[in-house]
């Protein structure tokens, strides 16, 4: 499968500050999560991929086209939802979204028709003739998403689309993003909220301090390297037994979260329970959350220097 985008030694600086440091990536089509703390380089990466910023060094391709030579062609085929305010307050939602479609090269009639369809899709059909200045934050975010997809892009770059939304608005936005994948639109979705990425994406790119610390399928993060064990009676002896043999054990009530490296966790738990004569009520795999994976990868990156 041809990559959605790829970068080779992509470097970007703002004066003396390096925002991206020799990033090399190859990302397949689908729902891509771009995670990292504020200032990690997510927005800079997106804006470089769109050709809105010129990198200091390196190459990029989006949809198989080189950004350095075909940025305008690429921009006809992609959508962008900026993080900050980007809506004219004196226009109606229908007018602005239609105009955004025309800006991507759609003829006026088609632009108007698609504006109406997309505003229906994002749940703003009733409000489409209201002025944007009268909209709430949630409605604002939905109009921003609508303008990013109104021209039927092959990929939509969404920069913190759920920022500033209440829980209900956030769920709705994440649901819309999931649906874009079903419509055949790839999504590159940046967020510093890891649970949003975990719920929505099937590939994750982790950025920290301008470097990629991981890029891969999100499913690979749930590696069975840990077990959750619920025991009958006192869990402390078993926990101590396993800790003495190099495992990391977290005790919460009768629950033991057991993490081991380089050893079979099931065997270790079995031996511990037999040795300490503790009964077992429940046993299951503990998946690594995206947050844990991010912290672990960032720590490893720090250790590597």
């Amino acid at each position, binding site marked *: 499968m041809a990559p959605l985008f790829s970068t080779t030694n992509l470097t970007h600086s703002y004066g003396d500050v390096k925002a991206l440091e020799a990033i090399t990536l190859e990302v397949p089509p689908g729902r891509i999560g771009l995670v990292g703390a504020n200032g990690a380089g997510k927005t800079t990466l997106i804006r470089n991929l769109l050709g809105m910023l010129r990198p200091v060094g390196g190459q990029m391709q989006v949809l198989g086209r080189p950004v350095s030579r075909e940025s305008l062609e690429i921009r006809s085929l992609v959508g962008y939802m900026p993080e900050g305010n980007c809506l004219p307050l004196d226009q109606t939602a229908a007018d602005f979204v239609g105009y955004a479609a025309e800006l991507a090269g*759609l003829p006026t009639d088609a632009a108007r028709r698609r504006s109406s369809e997309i505003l229906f899709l994002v749940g703003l059909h009733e409000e489409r003739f209201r002025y944007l200045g009268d909209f709430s934050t949630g409605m604002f975010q939905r109009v921003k998403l609508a303008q990013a997809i109104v021209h039927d892009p092959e990929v939509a770059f969404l920069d913190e689309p759920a920022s500033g939304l209440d829980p209900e608005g956030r769920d709705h936005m994440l649901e819309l993003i999931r649906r874009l994948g079903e419509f055949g639109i790839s999504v590159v979705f940046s967020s510093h909220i890891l649970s949003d990425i975990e719920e929505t994406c099937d590939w994750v790119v982790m950025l920290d301090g301008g470097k990629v610390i991981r890029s891969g399928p999100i499913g690979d993060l749930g590696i069975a390297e840990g077990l959750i064990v619920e025991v009958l009676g006192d869990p402390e002896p078993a926990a101590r037994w396993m800790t003495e043999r190099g495992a990391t054990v977290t005790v919460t009530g009768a629950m033991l979260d057991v993490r081991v490296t380089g050893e079979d966790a099931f065997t270790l738990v079995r031996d511990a329970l037999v040795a300490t004569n503790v009964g077992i009520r429940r046993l299951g795999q503990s998946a690594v959350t995206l947050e844990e994976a991010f912290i672990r990868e960032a720590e490893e990156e720090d250790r590597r220097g």
Partner: protein
Amino acid sequence: MADRPPEAVIVDRGYRHFEGTRRGRRGALGAVVRDGFRRVLGLRRKGRRKILPWALITMMLISVAVLSALHYAANQVGVTDLVADELPHHREYFEFIARVALLFIAFATPELLVPDREQGVLAVYLSRPLRTIDYLAAKGMSLGILMMAFLLIPQTIFHLLLGVFSPDGFTTYMVDNLDVLWQVPATALVYFLGFSSVALIFATLIPRVGFAAGIFLGVMIMFNGLAEFFVDVADFAGSQYGALLAFEAHPHLVRDWIFGASTSDYAVSRAGFEPWVALLVIVAVAVLAVTLAWNRYRKLS
């Protein structure tokens, strides 16, 4: 109770892909130009946004109607000397419409640039197949077309009505006044350049439409006074160069040059400058304004 008809509600229309032609950069440029027209004229905006542009347009149309009526009345009573010598023709009519055009430019230029910049809409523009220079060129095109229409439509109506009212007949009048066909558009272009360049500087630097318009008008009026001061009051070597600050007067001087009329009493001409110097200043300010805007927008994007 009668049975109610079955009701159906569409809860999801799904998604349809666009299969038509994408017009790329050219389509994007056209969209920005058309949006510029709508923005300046207040179309698809709240009612209060329409008041100023349409008041100025109405003023222009009334002026041409009044002026044409005066010519018609004078021709009817046969006072041809009055028609020839006293009543305003194209050059003098520019004197009036240029002042209305100054107001038009004062609000139209920042209206085209400031809201996009201050409300962050530039990020949307520049994610489309559009470069910064395309954006600025399209905005300039919107302003240019509107301004030329603003100046040329009343002049064209006026010219046609003068032909209709002429005792010599329409065709004879048109043939005798062929020069008007280049003089009027050339003068309109000079006014557009002369006024919009200065307005562009303030629209580029000031973050509020009202302030940018007010400061532009203030500068145009105050600098005229300043120029008069340098020419008439100041008495030091080189003080006559202060006359070049009369940015509002330069297009008038060039207009007189284009129409082959004796130069009116502007500070620039009193300071001894030829009309070509005024034209040079207009071009220099235009280059400065475009360079400033280009630099500012390049940084923003």
